[in-house]
């Protein structure tokens, strides 16, 4: 069976990503978009910190030196030290690791499961669609972070519990998005043509409809990472994350809270790192949306 290649060009697809020249122009538009460039650069910085923390960090993340406790920022400790004399800068650098895990893992879990489910129910419809839509409505009845909080309560505290909890509570958003896109695309001329020439369901879904689904899902994934990093840090702040002494930004802010009147730097710098990471991801998401999915306004997932 040969693919009716030019069909997608005649359809009024918002993003005809199929032809090679448009694909190049999308990369070019992304590379020329200020939000994408700035966000991407900042995100790479955080990623580098996470990957090479062992080489970059001047001290060990849990190395204590009680004779140097609560030192203000200075030449030996750029971001000061905490109540055990641990170097805040080193802990901030190592803290990029759990934060990225809490941002990326939920995004992967919910996008894969949610998109697949959403596409299947959107395509086949009928009672599965009705049932799943009701289930999504029920899941969305819970304020997002509270659902994650409940799942963490079930799984017990820890990094991977948080990641799984945020991943599960994000699924409904992807189902809703993918389903909506598929239902719209099903009526599009290029899909009707593919069906008319006898393409199988799988082929219609994964060679044709998917190009309508991917752009908004990519945008959602990026924004989801930002939301998941924030939610993960908030859950850690509540004491439901990695147990001490491992460095994690939310936990460090909780630690710094007790010393806020004395040593502001303990809570200040982890928060800046968190804000920069989330800012980078939000910028990337904004840029991706401008280029890939200009019509949607998008809502943050938290």
């Amino acid at each position: 069976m040969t693919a009716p290649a030019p069909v997608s060009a005649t359809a009024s697809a918002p993003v005809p990503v199929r032809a090679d020249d448009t694909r190049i122009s999308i990369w070019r538009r992304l590379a020329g978009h200020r939000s994408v460039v700035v966000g991407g650069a900042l995100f790479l910085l955080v990623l580098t910190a996470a990957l090479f923390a062992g080489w970059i960090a001047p001290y060990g993340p849990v190395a204590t030196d009680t004779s140097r406790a609560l030192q203000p920022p200075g030449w030996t400790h750029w971001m000061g030290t905490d109540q055990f004399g641990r170097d805040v800068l080193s802990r901030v650098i190592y803290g990029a690791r759990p934060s990225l895990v809490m941002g990326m893992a939920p995004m992967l879990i919910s996008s894969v499961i949610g998109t697949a489910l959403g596409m299947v129910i959107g395509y086949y419809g009928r009672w599965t669609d009705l049932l799943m839509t009701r289930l999504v409505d029920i899941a969305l009845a819970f304020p997002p972070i509270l659902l994650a909080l409940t799942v963490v309560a079930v799984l017990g505290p820890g990094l991977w519990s948080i990641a799984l909890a945020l991943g599960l509570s994000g699924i409904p958003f992807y189902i809703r998005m993918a389903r909506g896109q598929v239902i719209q695309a099903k009526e599009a001329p290029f899909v009707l043509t593919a069906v008319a020439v006898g393409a199988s369901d799988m082929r219609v879904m994964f060679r044709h409809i998917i190009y309508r689904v991917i752009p908004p899902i990519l945008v959602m994934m990026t924004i989801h990472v930002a939301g998941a990093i924030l939610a993960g840090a908030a859950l850690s702040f509540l004491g439901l994350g990695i147990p001490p002494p491992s460095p994690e930004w939310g936990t460090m802010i909780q630690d710094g809270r007790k010393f806020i009147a004395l040593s502001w730097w303990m809570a200040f710098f982890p928060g800046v790192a968190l804000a920069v990471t989330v800012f980078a991801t939000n910028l990337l998401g904004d840029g991706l949306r401008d280029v890939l999915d200009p019509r949607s306004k998008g809502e943050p997932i938290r």
Partner: protein
Amino acid sequence: MLRYLAGRMILTIPVLVGAAILIFLLMQLVPGDAVSAVMAGGAKLSPEQQLEMREALGLNRPLVVQLGDYLWGLVQGDLGRSTRSDRTVISLVGAQISSTLILVAAGMAVALLIGVPLGVLAARRRNTLVDTAAMGTAVLGLSIPQFWLGLMLILLFAVNLGWFPALSSGGFRALVLPALALGLAEAAVLARLVRSSLIESLEQDYTTTARAKGASDRRITWRHGLPNALVPVVTMIGLQVGNLMGAAVVIEMLFARPGLGQLVVNSILRRDLPVLQGSILILAAIFVFINLAVDVIYKFLDPRVELGAA
């Protein structure tokens, strides 16, 4: 309108029942039960006593029966009892909920009072430095963790300037910092939405007509543009209330403010599941009802919407 209202209200019933079932089933996945939780708390029980207690609590009945019992209890306003104290969940939640709702309302007020004007300003000065600055601030506002912002507000306004109390016990002055910490991020969301929505509405035919009739810029923005631009904002507000309720839990812990936050987090740490289950369910129910109200307002603003097409 009345038919829409009735239909919309009936639609919330399966959602509420489903939410109760979902949270009930989630709680069943927690390793251990009420009896082992009591024992983890230090109580020494013989195997016979454990059996007796499970019998008394009805924990050895089939799951479906327990679920039915739980749902029947809910209908009668019975959310169960705390496993750690002898109080009913409903009394525990009832004692805290007003504090949380006040905080959420104050956070929403902050979001509206800052977000809407900022969005209007950015839309009217579209593609100028003012717009770029306003939207840059908004993305930054979206990215700053609320609990950290709250802590920095404490550092500046409580520790250094002494204008507001650091820990919030009650009263209006104690509400200011938590409400700001909570509301600024949502103000950023609103500002972005109001801007894009207002720009879209200012490009519509009715705006051109108004302009052709000689209406001033100010009149066009406030009389023609904004009311139409606010329609999607109403939907967003419904979602934001949910975000605010979730974030309020965290902010309450930060400011050591009484409310459901303390109740929820402590119930997790002490594995007091009935309290957790009840608090989350009540928050979800409030969220559902607020969204019901939002949908009705939406219908009022835009009579074209049909039932179920949200």
